[in-house]
């Protein structure tokens, strides 16, 4: 595998996996919270929140990347504040993870929200009559029944995060070994003469990862929903 892939290509694959992993992991709790709010609660500004969550799905990725740069760039208030705490995003791999997380966020929220809406609220009522407080109803009933949606959403978000290009390259650029993710590497290889064979290998890897993620997500959700059928 390492022979077949050059060191730069290999680094890009590993970086992409790392970026996608952390992007998915960190956005998961927030996605669960927001999906729960959107599915269960009525509040002022619900449509606005829904819109903001979905914005990255419809905005040109370059715009999202540029907005991130404006928000988290070194010279911005937020950026310099975070830098004082040792957290930097711009032109770092962590920035790539942030960009990927934001781009994948709508997919994650959608999948989880659907799974929450599929839960019969009557089960939660039954749990309450058995003595479970609201928090315990969530932990013992809602959360386990959401699991198929969470897993399906996470797998999908991971695949999306692996392939994120526009926002990433705008926000953290394309530095080999640091911020050059798989799609950025493919893009770079296509810019230099003779880079096609490297690009082709990365393209094949991308396809395998994307297909695998999709199949795994399908398999998981089908298996889980079969188990949970009433």
């Amino acid at each position, binding site marked *: 595998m390492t022979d077949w892939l050059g060191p730069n290509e290999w680094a890009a694959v590993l970086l992409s996996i790392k970026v996608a992993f952390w992007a998915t992991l960190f956005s998961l709790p927030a996605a669960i919270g927001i999906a729960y709010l959107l599915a269960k609660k009525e509040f002022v500004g619900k449509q606005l929140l829904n819109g903001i969550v979905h914005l990255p799905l419809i905005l040109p990725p370059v715009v999202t990347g540029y907005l991130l740069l404006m928000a988290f760039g070194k010279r911005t208030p937020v950026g310099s504040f975070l830098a004082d705490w040792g957290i930097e995003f711009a032109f770092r791999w962590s920035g790539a993870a942030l960009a990927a997380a934001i781009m994948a966020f709508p997919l994650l929220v959608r999948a989880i929200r659907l799974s929450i809406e599929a839960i*019969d609220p*009557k*089960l939660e*009522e*039954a*749990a*309450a*009559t*058995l*003595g*479970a*407080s*609201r928090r*315990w109803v969530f932990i*013992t*009933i809602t959360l*386990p*029944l959401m699991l198929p949606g969470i897993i399906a959403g996470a797998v999908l978000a991971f695949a999306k995060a692996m392939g994120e290009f526009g926002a990433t390259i705008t926000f953290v650029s394309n530095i080999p070994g640091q911020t050059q993710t798989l799609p950025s590497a493919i893009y770079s290889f296509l810019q230099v003469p003779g880079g096609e064979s490297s690009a082709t290998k990365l393209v094949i890897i991308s396809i395998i990862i994307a297909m695998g993620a999709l199949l795994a997500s399908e398999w998981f959700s089908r298996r889980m929903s079969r*188990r*949970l*059928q*009433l």
Partner: protein
Amino acid sequence: MTLSVSLQLSMQSFSLDVEFEAPKGITVLFGESGSGKTTTINAIAGLQTNGQGRITLSDRVLFNSDSNIHLKPNQRNIGYIFQESRLFPHLTVEQNLNYAKRFKNINKSVDFNHIVALLGIKPLLKRRPNSLSGGEKQRVAIGRALLSAPDLILADEPLAALDGARKAELLPYFKRLNQELGIPVLYVTHSPEEVLELADHVIALEQGRIVTQGAAREVMANSKVARTANRAIKSTLTAHLVGQQSDGLSELQVANETLYVPTLDAPIGSAVCLELVANDLILSESKVNGISALNQVCGTVESIETTSSSDVLINVCVATEIISTHITTRSLNNLNLSIGDPCVLIIKSVNICHANRAKG
């Protein structure tokens, strides 16, 4: 342990105003669907949150709109058995049964093994709810509610989703859980059979108001309640599909009588179960000409039951089947029928329903 309820609430097209006490034993809330039974017990459980009034269980105030007391469902210590069992699909039967244990300090008086034995669910413990039959699910649901060591059990038509045989199998459990465990039960139903079988005390509801309450026999004899109850009296009979006719009717055979019903989608020759509502049937001395009803079936009077001061239930034997019809005492006198007399049942085709196939 006495439950005392005073509750007023209004929704778009429905208002509820009830005041009652449920003493020890099994109290049945009886009424047609839409009479406010479920709304009432949901309010007692804390699942229905609007409304005015007071609900107390012995000296515990569960709800008092005047002093703004509103205990959450999990603080009321009331077990609820729902119509659709509501078992948690991700947990095994055993985990379902033990669910309440995590949240409540349950005293020793509820013994897991005793209740499991009482309900006959020991062989099911390791299984998941989706592999259980309807009757099994409901027994587990009863056990789950009991094992939360409640001060009161609410049951919302717990047998309505089950077929006749399962109903008969489950009814005794409700009697036993009250007699053996001493937990008061508030049981909601629209079935007169269940009332007579279970109730120590009956509260009859109609359109959100209490019509009458008291001992089961007295309440069911009340003509207003009886009318509600009679609407639910049905007979079932088995017929065979003989053929489909060109005008959309299906021809059925019961013994040597022919019945015509609106299209039945079943293979020719197959047995179908029909349901006849006692209030829909007309009784006659002999066959009648010039009438729209397509079916006139000959039989003999098997028995006559008095259902209220003004009406009776006539059970007519047709071949081997018994069909009940509900008529006024005046009609009975006019027809001058007594047991053993031949008679004719007149049945409109559109009133013959294909009984639900047995579930679970």
